[in-house]
């Protein structure tokens, strides 16, 4: 058995430190070691995006990244986006516009959408569809997901303007 790696991560603002086998996948670190079960495993091959997290400011599919590659990283999962008392606008918007059904893709979908709106705060519908193409949903047909994201963008922009 190869030597274990000394890993330090910051996950949803909390510092974590542990020893891990080099082959440990980041999704298993999150789900099994840290019991952060919002990100899901849908395909094991980085196609479906159910495992999407934000890692050092980028959307990353945590099922195909070794935790060793993530050493030192700041990671945000769906659990770090909002709290029950202060939901992220996207969490509200997905409910409001029926942007989910079985809910399995939703954590990855919202995590990716949050990053997308950081990258492009006023996307067109086409840009949303392109920017979300790494996240698969089997239930909704995407129409209401796109609607939820566009509505969230509008709301976030409106409150930004109001604040300025």
């Amino acid at each position, binding site marked *: 058995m190869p030597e274990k790696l000394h890993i330090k991560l910051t996950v949803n603002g909390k510092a974590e430190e542990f020893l891990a086998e080099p082959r440990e996948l980041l999704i298993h670190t999150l789900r099994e070691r840290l019991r952060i079960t919002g990100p899901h495993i849908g395909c094991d091959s980085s196609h479906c995006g159910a495992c999407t997290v934000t890692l050092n400011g980028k959307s990353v599919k945590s099922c195909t990244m070794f935790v060793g590659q993530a050493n030192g990283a700041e990671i945000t999962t769906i659990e770090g986006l909002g709290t029950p008392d202060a939901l992220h606008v996207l969490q509200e918007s997905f409910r409001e516009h*029926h942007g989910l*059904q*079985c809910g399995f893709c939703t*954590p990855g979908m919202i995590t990716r959408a949050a990053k997308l709106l950081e990258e492009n705060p006023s996307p067109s519908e086409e840009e949303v569809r392109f920017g979300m193409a790494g996240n698969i949903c089997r239930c909704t047909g*995407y129409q209401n997901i796109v609607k939820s994201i566009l509505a969230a963008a509008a709301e976030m922009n409106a409150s930004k303007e109001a604040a300025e």
Partner: protein
Amino acid sequence: MKDDVELTREDRVANLKGMGCARKRVEDARFTQGKGNYIDDINLPGMLHGDFVRSPYAHAKVVSINTEAAMALDGVIAVLTAKDLEPLSLHWMPTLAGDKQMVLADGKVLFQGQEVAFVVATDRYIAADAVELVEVEYEDLPVITDPFEALKSDIVLREDLAGQTSGAHGPRKHHNHIFTWEVGDEEATNQVMDEAEVVAEETMYYHRTHPCPLETCGSVASMDKVNGKLTVYGTFQAPHVVRTVASLLSGIEEHNIRVISPDIGGGFGNKVGVYPGYVCSIVASIVTGVPVKWVEDRMENLMSTAFARDYWMKGRISATKDGKITGLHCHVTADHGAFDACADPTKFPAGFMSVCTGSYDIPVAYLGVDGVYTNKAPGGVSYRCSFRVTEAVYFIERMIEVLAIELNMDAAELRRINFIGKDQFPYQSALGWEYDSGDYHTAWDKALKAVDYEGLRREQAERVTAFKQGETRSLMGIGLAFFTEIVGAGPVKNCDILGMGMFDSCEIRIHPTGSAIARLGTISQGQGHATTFAQILASEIGIPADSITIEEGDTDTAPYGLGTYGSRSTPVAGAATAMAGRKIRAKAQMIAAYLLEVHDDDVEFDVDRFVVKGAPERFKTMAEVAYAAYNQAIPGIEPGLEAVSYYDPPNMTYPFGAYVCVMDIDVDTGVPTIRRFYALDDCGTRINPMVIEGQIHGGLTEALAVALGQEIAYDDMGNVKTGTLMDFFLPTAWEVPNYETDHTVTPSPHHPIGAKGVGESPHVGGVPCFSNAVMDAFRAFGLRHSNMPHDHWRIWQTAQDLGLHK
């Protein structure tokens, strides 16, 4: 209660958030915050992890299995093979279709990916390591992946059945033949064909595909040896059936088994069946005395659990020269793979394929189906449809198109002149069904008008002219489909699964302060039952939906039911919910009458209260009645306010719809672009329009996938060529259009609230609609039929075959 007096009746109705309102979903709070509880989220103390050794061969003798090296690995607790299961008689298990299936390879393997040994270890990485260390010696055997070849071959696939000339569905004609199922009058149909003015024939292959929900299948079994109780969590679309089957197989009494379906990440039929992984996790937990988890990965899911379709369909349709259909003949060669594990009601080995006369008044028809074994994975589930209804609807909607070509007639008009008329309902179909209600002409006219059908045809004709003159390389297809579904199985008299009648149930308890909990025998996999069933109840009993908890999926608490598939939740459990609500209301009315000091008949229910007839100022709200039910001694009435209903539907329901797809096709690349998709659905009474619309978007997208690229393909050696999401097409937001939805409302006359079910309609209607659009684009160039899936390559090939490339 005083405040209520001030509210208008309209306000009181709105407060209920009952039927017809676009109530936001109560499930969403946990899902949007990452707090869903899916099978892989379940983590019990001391839990072990199971993983399968699977066959790399599609057909081979298993000469030996050596588990020594695997067992020697630190952290490996057990390696189970068929030999270990045999003393428990669990090395084989019964299938839902009356066949049996190996749990672990017993002497041979019959499909690639078949379960050979089950490794149990302390974590999933060690289990995966141990799988690699199990040494299996195979001796390969000739492989058959073609059902027609299977029926001619001397090679016996199922040696365990050798010599058995009869199976669960009657005589077997050949050692690789499973059953012949016939419906209708073949002689009369042939006679009509012989005498017909026009007969159109076509052979079509509805390819093998897979429901592929985003969450794969899995289970966590926990045997508590101290108390003798077995708890099984799993991705079960029918948890109560799983409990009964688990009891029958294991010998553990049913009251000592608790089956729990937690949140399910989509099902679409994939999670109806019973799989070796479930059985092995249970056996492993019984053996080790600690919980054992098994969750398949995506490749295992696509290779081994529950394929769909794989029907070779040969059709003949006859008509008068002006287009009146006189007869329909259909023969299906059904590839069931290595074991007949189709999930159909017992008496219907090809499901409801016999609804293949579609929405048309066809006087005489015949359907014959031959089931065949091959070296492919078992399954044959209904992927987002009632039992085999997608196959039936695709078949008839293609036959209509082919007949239109034969008659040189417009396909929309051909449909119109053959629709079952509104005044013909209830309609007896030639193949034995009683369609409950419908108004097809109205729906069709509305759809054609909405898309300006004539305008589209003019545009299409102009495009053909432009193409022929070399002005464009793009063609335009107009896809039409009119479907009738048959859902809500079903009447217990003819629908059962493994002998269990297909009723469903609801149990309601009203709490003293006027809120409630209702439990059902179904289980949501994304359909939003917790939201919509509360709406049915709110309208029935006058308690706001927000004050009603809906619970499903725990067999220790929920009443027995047959589960959620085949769009049966609303038609069956939804009916049970309304009926149980009415029992609550009947008792509440007696209590209200007592409180109001009038006769029972002198009060009437109004929205959320019982009112003295003719004196609306004298009333008791349902909340007041609930309080009295528990806290006041009422002569002749026992305390409490609860009810249960087990509903056996008198008939199935028949949702229908009219779809139009407008598609542009790049002839040189084979890339289709969906310009417009219009979907009119009639699912009877509408419970939650927001949820209905969401279901339609989703079902259409799964239809797009199946029609335009998704397939489980095998090579001649029986290797699965589409085992990952790299090769198995799941559309993304980038490929999917926006859909226009519309509706008419034709309530079911026999359902307590007139609802018919909707989740599967868009898939059933969508597949032929997308496909017809592709083929319609080439109709002007002589195309009669081409098989799905219409991926870019196949569309390009179609254009190539028609000589459209320069």
